[in-house]
Every structure is written in structure tokens, then in C-alpha cells.
């Protein structure tokens, strides 16, 4: 009744081709952005920002990157953690080599290193696909993990083997994790994520996005209509890895403050991001955000519930239960809605359009 596209007439090509064609949706997104920028910093305390909102935003970006590869180009990758690590370590080295350049620039530039590595390990995708490719991408994951642990140059030969965010500022305010103000970190994270998401939306609805979807649906047919497979697939790897790399750099410099190999290994990074993509919805941008939010919030809820009921359980047991519950919930979600949270949102939208009439 209130939410519908009827009467929303377009009179110019320009207005017909904007990102959000329905006026109501556009205003809703503007309102959401205004809320995220102007209200959230004041109502959310540091705990919320640090443990929920900033990680969720950063992982949304990684999930978006992986979604480009898996959901749009149809290339399964289990190497996300490695690419995130490349971004993080590249950013760390960049801040060491060019200490005077602004940190935001470093974060955005570190994605390019991840993209280069992504292209390199995307090369087998021309010959193989499906699960064979998934296993091949594990090669990158294990090789990169090894490199992060063994090549001392990457972590500046320090004894701990970890990379620590250095103190850098933006516009006169300290920004990086242990030094900066959490609200400021949140605003910077939000800006980068919004900016890169906007770019992703436009890439995906343009020529590249369409050729990826053609390849996903049937690569031989795509080749026949004139899409060159090698450049398209490698571009998908490059852009996907760029997003993952930026997310990795942000994870270290804006959220964790320091990281070592374990932060980017297969169980801590690759699988969770893949879960975000699948639970959020393959081939859906909003799904990447919903999935990331879900996977980031879930363990926090699970570890908070017993405290809420004042049941005294030791933390190891909570950890074991967390694994069980996360695993069971993933299976449950796949059974109930294999198309992911994005599909639930679509159904809600359809219902809203018809409301108050039942369909």
C-alpha cells in the first residue's frame, strides 16, 4: 500500500538508470545512511562499535568481495583468508616503507597487492572449475599462510611474528586501532565500505558484471557470445581479491590493532566469509551485508546468553558449544532457506508491496 513502484515514472534515461530506481527505496537508503553517520556514533558505546559494528562492516566488505567471485562469476574460492592477509601485510609494509603517506591511502592501495596475488592464483581457473578449483584455491591459502609465518621481511623481523598497527592519523586525529577513537574509526570504516560498495554495485550492473554472470550460468555459451573467458575470470579474481585485501588491511588497522597468521587462516577467515556469502545469499549485495552481520553477531549472542541467565560455565565449554551451535545453525539455515537471507528480504519486499492484501 505504501511501498510500491507504481506511479514512480521516469522521464529521462538518466533517472531510469540510477542505482536505486524506486524513489522510496532511495530515500530509505539515504535515511539509513544518515542514521549510520549521525545517530549510531552517539547511541552505540565502544563495546558495540568495537566488537559488533566495525567487524561486521569490515567482513561485509570481504563477503562482498567473495560474493563477486562465487556468486557472480561462479568461481568457488576457499582462499579468502589468504587474500585478506595479503592486504593486511601489504598495508603494514606500506606504512613502514612510506611512513608519510596517509593511512587511508595505504589501506586502499594494499588491495592492489591482494588483487595481483589473486590474479596469479586465479590462473588455474581457466582450466578447472567447481570443486577442483575450490581445492586449487586452497593452494594459495596454505602458501600464503606459510609465507606470512616464514618470511620475516613481511613482519619487519620482529620477535613476535605479529604485525601491529602503527600510530597513524587522519586529519589530525589518531586513527589506527589502539591509538584512535573508536567513533572516528567507525566513521572512516563506514565511509570506505560505502564508497567501495557503491563501486561494486556499478561494476556488477555494468559490462563486467554481466559477463561474469554469463560465465557463471554457462561458460561455453558465454564464450560463444564473445566473452573472453581468461580476462573476465582473472578480472573477477582481481576485483574480488581487491575487496578482500582492503577488508584485511582494515581488519588489522581499524579493528584488531595487531594480527598474526592465525587471524587469516582457513578456520578464522576463509570459512566464516564463505558462510557469510552462502547464508547471506549468493549473488546478492545486500546478502553480503546481512550474512556478515549474522555471522559476526552469532558468536557474541551465544557467549552472552549463559551470562544473561547467570549460568556459570567455563569459557572453554562456551567455546565448544559455540562451535556446535554455529554448525547446527548453518545446516538449519541451509535447509530452511538455501537461497539465503537475501531471499527472505525479497519475500518481505513482495509482501510489503501487496500489503494489506494477502497474495
Amino acid at each position, binding site marked *: 500500500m505504501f511501498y510500491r513502484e507504481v506511479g514512480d515514472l521516469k522521464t529521462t534515461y538518466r533517472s531510469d538508470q540510477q542505482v536505486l530506481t524506486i524513489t522510496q527505496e532511495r530515500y530509505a537508503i539515504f535515511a539509513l545512511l544518515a542514521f549510520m553517520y549521525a545517530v549510531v556514533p552517539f547511541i552505540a558505546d565502544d563495546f558495540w562499535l568495537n566488537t559488533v559494528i566495525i567487524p561486521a562492516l569490515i567482513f561485509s566488505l570481504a563477503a562482498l568481495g567473495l560474493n563477486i567471485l*562465487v556468486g557472480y562469476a561462479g568461481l*568457488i574460492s576457499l582462499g579468502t583468508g589468504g587474500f585478506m592477509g595479503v592486504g593486511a601485510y601489504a598495508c603494514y609494509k606500506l606504512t613502514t616503507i612510506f611512513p608519510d603517506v596517509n593511512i587511508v591511502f595505504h589501506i586502499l592501495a594494499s588491495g592492489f597487492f591482494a588483487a595481483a596475488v589473486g590474479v596469479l592464483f586465479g590462473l*588455474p581457473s581457466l*582450466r*578447472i572449475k*567447481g*570443486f*577442483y578449483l*575450490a*581445492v*586449487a584455491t*586452497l*593452494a594459495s591459502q*596454505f*602458501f600464503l*599462510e*606459510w609465507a606470512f*609465518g*616464514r*618470511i620475516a621481511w613481511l613482519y619487519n623481523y620482529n620477535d613476535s611474528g605479529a604485525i601491529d598497527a602503527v600510530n597513524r592519523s587522519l586529519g589530525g586525529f589518531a586513527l589506527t586501532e589502539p591509538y584512535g577513537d573508536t567513533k572516528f574509526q567507525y566513521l572512516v570504516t563506514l565511509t570506505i565500505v560505502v564508497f567501495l560498495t557503491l563501486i561494486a554495485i556499478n561494476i556488477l550492473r555494468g559490462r563486467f558484471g554481466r559477463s561474469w554472470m554469463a560465465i557463471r550460468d*554457462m561458460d*561455453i*555459451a558465454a564464450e*560463444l557470445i564473445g566473452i573472453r573467458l581468461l580476462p573476465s575470470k582473472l578480472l573477477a579474481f582481481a576485483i574480488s581479491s581487491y575487496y578482500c585485501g582492503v577488508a584485511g588491511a582494515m581488519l588489522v588497522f581499524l579493528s584488531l590493532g595487531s594480527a598474526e597468521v592465525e587471524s587469516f587462516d*582457513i578456520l578464522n577467515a576463509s*570459512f566464516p566469509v*564463505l*558462510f557469510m556469502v*552462502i547464508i547471506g545469499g*549468493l549473488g546478492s549485495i545486500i546478502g553480503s551485508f546481512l550474512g556478515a552481520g549474522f555471522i559476526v553477531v552469532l558468536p557474541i549472542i551465544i557467549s552472552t546468553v549463559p551470562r544473561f541467565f547467570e549460568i556459570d560455565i567455563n569459557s*572453554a*565449554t562456551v*567455546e*565448544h*558449544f*559455540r*562451535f*556446535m*551451535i*554455529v*554448525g*547446527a*545453525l*548453518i*545446516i538449519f539455515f*541451509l*535447509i530452511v532457506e*538455501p537461497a539465503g537471507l537475501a531471499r527472505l528480504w525479497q519475500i518481505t519486499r513482495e509482501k510489503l508491496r501487496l500489503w494489506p492484501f494477502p497474495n
Partner: protein
Amino acid sequence: MELLHQIFIGPFIEMAGAPDLLVQVVWEGFVSGILYALIALGFVLIFKASGIFNFAQGIMVVFGALSLVGLHELGVPAWLAVILCIGIMFVLAVTVERVVLRPLVNQPEIILFMATIGLNTFLIGFGETVFGGEPKTMITAELGLPTGVTDVQMLGGMVSFQHIDIAAAVIAALMVATLAIFFNKSKIGRALRAVADDHQAAMSVGITLQQIWVIVWFAAGIVALVTGIMWGARSDVSFALEIVALKALPVLILGGFTSIPGAIIGGLIIGISEKLAEFYWGPMVGGSIESWVPFFVALIFLWFRPQGLFGEKIIERI
């Protein structure tokens, strides 16, 4: 020049210089290759019959070994514990079929793959809740497995063979032979092959898919249990095994997802090349390269045969 010599010639001179050491390294590789092959075998069984890439195979190995040790710690005699473990594996197979596979029938492959990753996560949590997170020692002696070492004088040196490794090789060979006979001669085996070939055609001649799935998951569970016992006897039984089990994956792409001989030969190639690389080339770059060398070996093979050594030829139609 110095570097090229170090990479391409040095290690071979080293090999020729100490052939007994080479035999030892190859033997080590052979044994770990057998264990990789056994894990890969579990994957292949399930993939063949249901097209599901079962990521939880590695954790099933840990789970089987842990329940065996856990039961024995409760005072159950070893032979009874083994039988009970087989029972546990059967219950697991039935549960997985009922709870996970049946509701997800006809979903895309990636969804089923994710479900097995979910199962993987669940089993880690479940195993840790029941058995605790600490490493345990496998009950090698109680199971009647040999534990000695034989040193053989050969090639101007000593090569030592752990008895447990020899036992592992023999048991693996026996198990593969049993599986081959089961697959090729028995009625159930024929049904399994029919399902692997074409689900719908198999159903139309009266084969119940659900039953077949329970049987393959049960078979994979038994393979996992045997692997767990063998592996546990060589090191401790702990969840660290799960990461090691990931190394069965290059074995799969090397041998082909659907081939049992492929899993065995692939396992041996991966095991031996990994140990050789680690021993002769590893020190050059700081060691621990066995975490990724298997994948690169597999990738090199893939470059020439995208379907693996023994995989079915991939034919694509528009």
C-alpha cells in the same frame, strides 16, 4: 648460477650421496601417503555415490579415533570399543542422511558442500564437548597393533621401519581390496555404482537413494575410523589432525574425485613428493613447506589433466 645449482642439482647429489637416507625419506612419504589416501578414499566414496564434496571427512577421522580412545578410557575393552565405534559411525551416517542430506536433496552442489562444512563445525564442537580438547594417546597395544622398529641394513646404511607403519600399509591394502570386491561383486556394490552413474536411472530400477547414502556414509565412516586408528598410532589423537586432513584434498584433485585407484596413487605421489620436498628443498626456504607443496604438485598435474589422473573425462554440452 649458485642458486640454480642449489635448487636443481644440489638436492640430487645429496640423494645419490646417501641412498639409505633417501630410502628412509621415501618410506616416510609412502606411509603418510597411505594415510592421505585413506582420507581421500572416504571423500571419493561419498562423492561417487552422491556427488557431495564431504568436507567433514577429516573430522570424521578425528571423531572416530576420539570415540575409540574415549570409550576405552571409560573401561570398555578394546575389541568392544571398536565394535561400539562402528556402531557410532552407523548412527552418524543415519543421522547425517536424515537431518542433513534428505532435506537438502536437489539443492545445488555448493549448498551441500556448505552443509558439510557446517557438519564439520558441529562435529568439532560436539567432539570437544564430549571428549575434551586435549590430545589423547591411541590405545595401540590394546588393539594388538605392533609397536616395534626393524632396522634393515641396506645401501651402506641403516633404514628403520616402524612396525606400525608396515601394519598401516597392510591394513590399507586389505581395506582397499575389500572395498573393491564389495563394489564390484556384491549386490549393494552394484547398486552403489548405479547411483554413482545416474541417480534417476538408479531410482527407476528400484534402488532406494536414501539407503544407498546411509551405506556410503557408513562405509566412509569405517574408513575414517581405520584411518583414525592408524594415524592416532603414529601421533596423538587431537583436533590438529583435522588440518592435516585438509592435505587429502590435493590427493583428490590429483587422483580425480571419482576414482578409488586415483585416491591411492594420488595419495602416494603426494606423500612421497611432500616428504622429499620438505627434506631436500625445505631447508633452503626455512622449512615447513609440506603445508603447500602437495597443492602445487596437484596443480601441476591439473595443468595437463584437468580431471585428475584417473577422473572421468569431462564432457561439456551446451
